[in-house]
């Protein structure tokens, strides 16, 4: 009896916390966005700058996810399947983006590629603009979201060991075949999970991007930055309307994430490897 009370009290407390801290704010976004009617809402999200910002955000996310997936797999592969000196250091380095503030990540790029940066003359020579331009935004986003894929894969690949790869190699299979036929099927759900997390974070990245972007409307404004601009201009309804796009994407990603998580648990997931 007493246990039951404790159980329901804890569940109630958890639910209340989630309601106040997470659901209420999100609901508020939608309520505010639609407060002045559908027309104002659609006007705000169909605004030229909003659409440009959405495009830039999607573009940045696609590049970021591709780059981080490829390098994440490389990093996880080398850490999980090989023995070498400095492996521990490499593992720690991968975590850097998680442990430092995004704003510092942004500043780092200003210091390297900006007017005062050591790489600036080189970029000037080739006529490439990084800071206050799209490449800077992409770089900053890649930096901030780098660990997601590799962090997801490293424990998984370490738990799996390299026996299956060795077995395939002993039968004469080459590296690419081993990856395609043996490694990739084994990691696919973990990989997908990492990609989804990486996507979610890229879409919403604000701090680092804010530093390198320069806030040029229609040029270097991503969706989160656009929301901030609207907010600063006291266009609250528009700000919330644009925010609701991000919320919508977030909910879609959440659902995808749950589906993948369910698949991972159901078959060939972590439980299967630990055994």
């Amino acid at each position, binding site marked *: 009896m007493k246990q039951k009370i404790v159980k329901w009290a804890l569940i109630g407390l958890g639910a209340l916390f989630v309601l106040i801290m997470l659901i209420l704010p999100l609901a508020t976004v939608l309520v505010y966005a639609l407060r002045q009617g559908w027309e104002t809402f659609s006007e705000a999200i169909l605004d030229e700058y909003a659409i440009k910002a959405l495009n830039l955000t999607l573009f940045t996310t696609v590049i970021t996810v591709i780059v981080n997936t490829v390098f994440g797999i490389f990093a996880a592969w080398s850490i999980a399947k090989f023995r070498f000196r400095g492996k521990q250091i490499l593992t720690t380095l991968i975590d850097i983006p998680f442990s430092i503030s995004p704003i510092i990540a942004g500043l780092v790029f200003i210091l390297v590629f900006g007017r005062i940066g050591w790489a600036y003359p080189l970029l000037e020579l080739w006529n490439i603009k990084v800071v206050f331009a799209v490449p800077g935004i992409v770089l900053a986003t890649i930096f901030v979201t780098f660990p997601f894929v590799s962090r997801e894969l490293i424990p998984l690949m370490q738990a799996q060991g390299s026996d299956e790869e060795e077995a395939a190699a002993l039968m004469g299979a080459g590296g690419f075949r081993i990856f395609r*036929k043996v490694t990739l099927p084994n990691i696919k759900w973990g990989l997908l999970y990492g990609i989804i997390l990486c996507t979610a974070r890229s879409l919403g990245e604000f701090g680092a991007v804010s530093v390198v972007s320069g806030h040029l409307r229609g040029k270097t404004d991503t969706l989160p930055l656009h929301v901030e601009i609207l907010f600063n201009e006291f266009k609250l309804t528009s700000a919330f309307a644009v925010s609701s796009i991000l919320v919508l994407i977030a909910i879609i990603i959440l659902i995808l994430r749950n589906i993948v998580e369910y698949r991972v648990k159901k078959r*060939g997931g972590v439980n299967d490897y630990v055994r």
Partner: protein
Amino acid sequence: MYVELQDINKKFGGYQAADNINFSIEKGKLIGLLGPSGSGKTTILRMIAGLETPDSGSIIIDGQRVNDLPASRRGIGFVFQNYALFRYMTVFDNIAFGLEVQKRDKAYIKERVSELIKLIGLEGLEKRRPHQLSGGQKQRVAFARALAPSPHLLLLDEPFAAIDAKIRKELRTWLRETINKVGITSIFVTHDQEEAVEVADEIIITNSGRIEQIGTPIDIYKKPATPFAAKFIGESIDVDRYGELHGFETDEHYDHAVLRPEFVKVTKVDKELYPYASERGTVEGIFFRGNMLELRLNVKGLKLISYRALEDEIFEVGEEVSILIYRLYLYNDKHVRMVENASVKANELFII
């Protein structure tokens, strides 16, 4: 000689996993690499396969030095301790993998895989995934997969370690028979001496990166070459002060002796056959061991063990009994010497 290892050394950091290893294996033999965990036996196997590179020395297979040949081109079949079956492939695809790598045509692959599935007795399970198989079945699939590309040499790393005791015995006999049928030179690693003795034509005993002895199971059992081999093969009881036992004299070069339970015969005091050779001792404990009784004995303060059939006369704990020890292995840190009970020999009596 089909497989030869010459002066192989391998270090992992400060740990010497292989210390000047030399041995050679005849074609068609089934060899057991036996040693405690950490003795370097798996490292030896992995070096032969090409999964590790020796720091120095040569590995020769079929007359060719293979040190610089990558694992994929050595033509070796390898069965992993945890099977390492490809978990997202069916039984059929697992076995077919090596053949697909060799780019064999579909009809041949189908025929060869069916033939192997028949050999391992898993007809009808072709479409199963590894997680739908029992341990013994996985083991058989791993074996078939290793054999599929027709390797010249088969290596098995602790092939029975992950299988429960009952099926292990069955699988041992099966593996031995199947390897004989296929006629492939094979090396398997084990830490279980019973397994090595039962399955192998020849045993190589390894200990802390070195080879202690090479020989047939019977040879090693009867004539252990080193103290380690004497203690590792068979069950052994360590005895100091062996000179106090009737029929044995202290040899100044050897300060310890190994005694095996089967060298100890226990009888009731009134049925003692060799009074001069026997000892008097007490039964300190009797334990049921499934198909026999284990007796814990105390002779002049020395603790001995002996086995007794269930049909034999029953002793009681605390009973005084006659104990005949008819053989000992004396050893020091390098050598082993077998001695028989001198009093029994003097009486020219025959011992079972």
